[in-house]
């Protein structure tokens, strides 16, 4: 009886859901096109923020509240700021000419690939059941995500899963982050002057002048 109730409610079009989806889809698509087509890298980074906010809204819409918060904090707050920092640190925030095509015939081929990929994915979505593999495509969440037995919601579920089922992967990401930090430090370090260790300062000054020239 519960199933019939679900089907009955799911066949009715929910206008607020549709409105939220349409608005955030427009935001996501405009942002994505802005990343690809903008000539200034700073504008591209700001368009990326727009797309990330849209995706966060869709996460909330699908009851992934914790991931939406992490998306805003990590992506928009850390990764894009890192991008902007590097863009302005290197001083490459000027307009670039994207009308020239470095490899002849590359862009038409890229758009052919776009058509093939998009058509293939959407045809798979439309045709095959194994792609979605869902017990129920429409309607409310099945299973234990929004179980009424656990009133604390999906954050507690996600935490429990992360620290039990995915514990090894979780520890592996910790190792990965440490390795990434060490790698970033090694990459960003200036190599010392090979012969005169006392003249590293003047050498650094020279390379700074070369960089700014």
């Amino acid at each position, binding site marked *: 009886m519960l199933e019939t109730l679900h089907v009955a409610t*799911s066949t*009715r079009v*929910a206008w607020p859901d549709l409105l939220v*989806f349409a608005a955030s*889809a427009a935001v996501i*698509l405009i942002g*994505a*096109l802005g*990343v*690809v087509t903008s000539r200034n*890298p700073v504008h*591209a980074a700001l368009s*990326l923020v727009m797309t*990330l906010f849209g*995706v966060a809204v*869709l*996460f909330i*819409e*699908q*009851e*992934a509240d*914790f*991931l939406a918060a992490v998306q805003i904090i*990590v992506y928009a707050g*850390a*990764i894009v700021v*890192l*991008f902007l920092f*590097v863009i302005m640190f*290197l001083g*490459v925030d000027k307009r670039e000419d*994207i009308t020239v095509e470095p490899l002849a015939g590359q862009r038409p081929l*890229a758009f052919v*690939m*776009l058509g093939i*990929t998009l058509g293939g*994915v*959407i045809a798979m979505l439309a045709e095959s059941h194994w792609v*979605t*593999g*869902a*017990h129920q*495509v*429409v309607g409310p969440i099945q299973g234990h*995500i929004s179980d009424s037995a656990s009133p604390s919601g999906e954050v507690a579920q*996600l935490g429990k899963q*992360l620290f039990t*089922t*995915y514990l090894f*992967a979780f520890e592996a*990401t910790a190792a*990965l*982050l440490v*390795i*990434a930090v060490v*790698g*970033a430090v090694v*990459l960003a370090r200036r190599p010392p002057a090979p012969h005169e260790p006392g003249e590293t300062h003047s050498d650094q000054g020279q*390379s700074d002048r070369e*960089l700014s020239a």
Partner: protein
Amino acid sequence: MSLSGAWYLGLAAIVFTIGAVGLLVRRNVLIMFMCIELMLNAANLTFVTFSRMLGDIGGQAVVFFVLVVAAAEVVVGLGIVVTNFRRRSTTVADDLHSLKG
């Protein structure tokens, strides 16, 4: 919550292809990185949608790991870009051809 999952999957497919085309077309290394982030976000949206459709929290756990890996990738990648810029004063991928045979 009654919006069908196919809408989200279609949107994710479109965003993924936009990112892929940007990665193929653009020559600025920083913008190529941003296109990779677009593709990762499309995959994340797909994972969250399947997580809702299948009623399995595992998809959201995978998205969590994707976020961590994306952060590590951006840190190392931008470090490489900065190091390369110090040597060659360029962020254009076509100019980095010293290993070309």
